[in-house]
């Protein structure tokens, strides 16, 4: 299974980016092989609106089953839920440490967005 972590850089040593929609990158880690891929989020970073929606689509399209981030708003959460993705919010630290925490079962999915949307 793949886990997507919102990240400030493209390696496992990068810090988790607490913003989901406007994160710099997503690191997709395959938990079976521990191989990873860094996906840039530049286009959504500069979106006039709906960044969370498009960021959610990006991680869905990359086959993630779990998203680990700092803050996730209602629209992104709705898209992730629709795709059956579990979302974990309120996390910080280096991506590799976050992955370790997840593997040990220390992080549990949230049942709703943890921040409000930016428009309404």
């Amino acid at each position: 299974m793949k886990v997507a972590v919102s990240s400030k850089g493209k390696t496992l040593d990068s810090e988790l980016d607490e913003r989901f929609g406007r994160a710099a990158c997503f690191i997709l880690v395959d938990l079976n092989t521990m191989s990873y891929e860094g996906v840039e989020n530049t286009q959504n970073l500069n979106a006039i609106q709906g960044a969370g929606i498009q960021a959610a689509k990006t991680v869905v399209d990359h086959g993630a089953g779990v998203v680990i981030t700092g803050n996730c708003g209602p629209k992104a959460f709705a898209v992730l839920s629709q795709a059956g993705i579990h979302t974990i919010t309120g996390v910080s630290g280096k991506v590799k440490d976050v992955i370790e925490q997840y593997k040990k079962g220390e992080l549990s999915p949230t049942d709703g967005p943890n921040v409000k949307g930016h428009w309404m």
Partner: protein
Amino acid sequence: MIISVASGKGGTGKTTVATSLALSLGKDTQLADCDVEAPNVHLFVHPEFRNEEIITVPVPKVDESRCTGCGKCVEICRFNAIVNIADTIMTFPELCHGCGGCQAVCPAGAIEEGERIIGVIQHGLCNGMDFLHGRLRIGEAMAPPLIRQVRSRINPDKTAVIDAPPGTSCPVIAAIKDTDFVVLVAEPTPFGLNDLELAIETVKILKIPAGLIINRSDIGDMGVADYAARENIPVLMEIPYDRNIAEAYCRGEPLVEAFPQWRRRFVRLCEDIDELVAEIAL
């Protein structure tokens, strides 16, 4: 003829000018408050409201049974209001600008037109003058579609005065575009000059003839007057910084009604604008 009253900076005196200008044009005039996010003209002209229209914008309604999941609607939407996830289409009506693009490109005819309420237009009368304004729904982010709807209610056979929102962004463009003349109101301070320059650049792009009213003209510096001279913008009127004017404003009294001597000056302003518009037409 449509005369719009705009400014770069907020709080420079647009409403003071727009109300007194409309009241000086005579009974066959319409006054339209297009500052739909914070309309306040009614506080000065005290219209008797006659009717109210609910205004909507079209938003996509997807018939999932006909959707083939091709994603063309998602591609065309630059506002991220529609997205395909796990074989379903999700829409976010609050992000939709109502362009109709998704409906136009859908090869399966799966997108119908729904609607989202963006606000109301209220119509009234004040001493025989037609008054109308838009009020944006609280929480609604998009003013231009409502402003365009207010504009569409203006009778082209009459003279109209539009009170525009402040700034130089989309709502202002929607309020002043294709008007016959724009009166820019500025105060003679460095801040006022900075925003006046932005406003002048905007009206140049829109190719609208403009004149300037300098409000609180005896404060600040000569920057605004010098700039107007350099740019060939006629200074149509100067209104001094006067406590009596401010007090009348606070009581909700239009300048020309609180001080009859100002009515003559505003009648003259109407004539000057008429002449300028006629010159440009030649």
